[in-house]
């Protein structure tokens, strides 16, 4: 009870997401330009899910959804990055699977014989916080996870819901997809917990990253994982993500990023590893991992960073890649990076 009270207070800091309003302006502008293509999905009002929205709203959202999901639209970098993010999550979890296998322990998710390459995330409950139009959420569901896609922007949630209707396989199981317009803090307050929490390309868009990270960390079940991806605060990242991407080439809308909100990997690591274990959580909820063998000192901390990987995008092919090992660490982690943390 005490805990909920505290988190409720921290919530008043309001980890508000600013990034969407900027994009909204852009996409609405586009709506006028090619309004002719909006006709296709005007007749789908009967579905109970959407009964609270009126018809012009649906037209607007389906157009926005189209923009959001366009491989050349304002968030095209998210689309092109997505396969790499998913591979990264798979790769990090499979390391963990192998450890589990070695130890011969029972694990929360299927490893040995039942492990299926096509649905590796079966039986995992995953939170995609800041899900936007749902590009990561959809992928995770296809891989068998039961996903909660959460976003503070109702508009994003509507976009995501509309887009999910384009793929029946998202509803045919074993994966489950659910979108909620809600913040991380609120989820924590509601007592939710997840095997995996993904906060991809979002920390740089929230006002109070430390509080936000605490909330995300608290949503991870003991033994579970937190995945983050963000941009480091370096001269190079300024040049690439703000000067070039926003101002010169306009690959992303101007104002998408605020350089001062970027966090370096070492800063992020410090923040996470300093989160106390008793501070944040819904600790009595289900566990993946019984904490036996974990010493007391360790369990007084929330957990550890288990991996940081630098990624980059090839400007010619537009493809994202993980840096080769021979590239100096400093350069690898200078711009975009992915991070895995494991809760004790």
């Amino acid at each position, binding site marked *: 009870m005490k805990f909920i009270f505290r988190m409720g207070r921290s919530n008043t800091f309001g980890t508000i997401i600013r990034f969407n309003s900027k994009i909204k302006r852009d996409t609405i502008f586009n709506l006028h330009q090619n309004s002719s293509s909006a006709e*296709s999905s005007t007749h*789908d009002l009967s579905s109970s899910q959407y009964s609270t929205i009126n018809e012009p709203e649906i037209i607007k959202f389906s157009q926005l959804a189209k923009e959001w999901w366009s491989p050349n639209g304002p968030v095209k970098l998210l689309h092109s990055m*997505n396969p790499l993010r998913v*591979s990264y999550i*798979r790769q990090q979890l499979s390391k963990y699977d192998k450890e589990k296998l070695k130890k011969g322990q029972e694990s929360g998710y299927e490893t040995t014989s039942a492990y299926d390459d*096509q649905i590796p995330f079966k039986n995992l409950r995953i939170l995609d916080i800041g899900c936007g139009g749902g590009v990561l959420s959809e992928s995770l569901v296809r891989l068998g996870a039961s996903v909660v896609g959460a976003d503070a922007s109702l508009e994003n949630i509507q976009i995501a819901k509309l887009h999910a209707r384009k*793929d029946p396989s998202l509803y045919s199981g074993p994966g489950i997809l659910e979108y909620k317009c809600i913040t991380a803090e609120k989820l924590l307050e509601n007592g939710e917990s997840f095997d995996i929490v993904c906060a991809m390309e979002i920390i740089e868009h929230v006002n109070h990253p430390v509080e936000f990270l605490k909330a995300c960390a608290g949503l991870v079940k003991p033994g579970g994982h937190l995945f983050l991806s963000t941009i480091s605060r370096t001269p190079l990242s300024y040049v690439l993500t703000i000067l070039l991407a926003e101002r010169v080439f306009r690959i992303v809308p101007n104002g998408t990023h605020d350089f001062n909100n970027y966090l370096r990997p070492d800063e992020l690591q410090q923040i996470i590893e300093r989160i106390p274990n008793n501070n944040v959580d819904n600790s009595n909820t289900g566990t993946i991992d019984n904490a036996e063998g974990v010493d007391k000192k360790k369990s007084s901390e929330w957990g550890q960073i288990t991996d940081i990987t630098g990624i980059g995008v090839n400007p010619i092919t537009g493809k994202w890649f993980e840096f080769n090992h021979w590239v100096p660490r400093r350069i690898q982690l200078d711009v975009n990076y992915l991070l895995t943390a494991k809760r004790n």
Partner: protein
Amino acid sequence: MIDKNLYDIAIIGGGITGSALACALVNSQKTKSRRIALIEFNNMSNIREWKPPHLQFSNRVSSLTPRSIQFFKDIGVWENINHERIRPYKDIQVWDGISNARIRFNSDDSISINKNIEAIAWIIENNNIQHAILTKLAQYKDSNIDFLENTTVKRIMFDDVNYENEQFDLSDWPSLELSNGKVLKTRLLIGADGINSVVRSFASIESLGWDYNARAVVATLQVEPQVENATAWQRFLPTGPIAMLPLNNRFSSMVWSTTPTLASKICTLPSNNFIHLVNAAFRLRIADLEYLYSQLENCDIEFVKEFEWRQSIEKKAGIGNEIFPPLVLDVQEKSRAEFPLKMRNAESYVKERIALIGDAAHTIHPLAGQGLNQGLADVQSLVKVIEHGVVTGQDLGNIQLLKNYSSDRYLSNLMMLGAVDKLHKLFGNDFAPIVFMRSLGLQVINHLEPVKSEIIKYAMGIE
């Protein structure tokens, strides 16, 4: 719960590339549970129950590179091949009809790269390949694949019919109207429907290229029995190349590209004359050959006498002491057929929810025997891309994913098309300086082992 007419992947065209793709997808651990439809216009039962006639060969044969063979091994098709009816060849002899300059390729030329390679390529009847693929497909009875044969795709369109009580919006999934009245919807539509691809025209993808003013005559030849018939022969005549490919020690297959007028005459010539014309085309000087062309409609002339007399004169003159392909003794009845020759490349291989493979994407002159091999390379690439899509949880129709396929294949196909087209043009010329230069080129290359080795590796599909 999900509509039974919804598919993840619909492949139009059950030719070799289309059915090989289906087979590779159900064979892959990563893609096997996708719902696949394979739609083919023809009734395949003849090929499914293919009983090869003794001492007869189909006139449609292909030369498969080691890379294509490896692919068939990987997807479990190779074990179903009738191995008595395939012939590896280790030698290629190519020579200039005008100057007789020659180049020899031997699989040993490539030995530096891979010791396991037993041959440059294998000559296989298309029916043998297709039969092996269908046999393999039949073993996947319980899988998620529907093979709709005897079925034509009549129309492809986008519709906004809602599915499952309007829960879904599949307006950007292509709908296929089939000849049996059914309508299918698919997440990913694959055009493996040959040169006149309906999928390509639906996607309004332009196909660029030209028709050669030439046709290919194919035939199954009975040849002088050989100890080891294991060389592919090709002579560049001014009208186009003529090739002889080994089938076994007594049979070979012929592909003769020539002018449309000559092609139709060659096809209808009495067998006896045809045989000697083929022998002449491999052995006699161009002037002699041209004399024979002019006599094709002359019923009185005995080609055998003409051929033997002219050859004896050339021998005396010391011309034509080179080694030649085995003498043709007979031509299998009804085995002569002619095909138009084209060169095409689609301006793009992918669009949102659409990909083209094989002849639907590109068509090449058969002189280097690469068309099908390119199609199979497309299949391998596309399977990898689809697997990557599955593993990363993507919608398999999304253009970003499919672009990985086109960027992998487009340039490589274009280069092969260009190289083969240039060869065709280079050798289709009888302007003396060009003949001189190309002959010099052949002779020089023939002595430059490293260059030869690179050429042969390229032709074998080794990267």
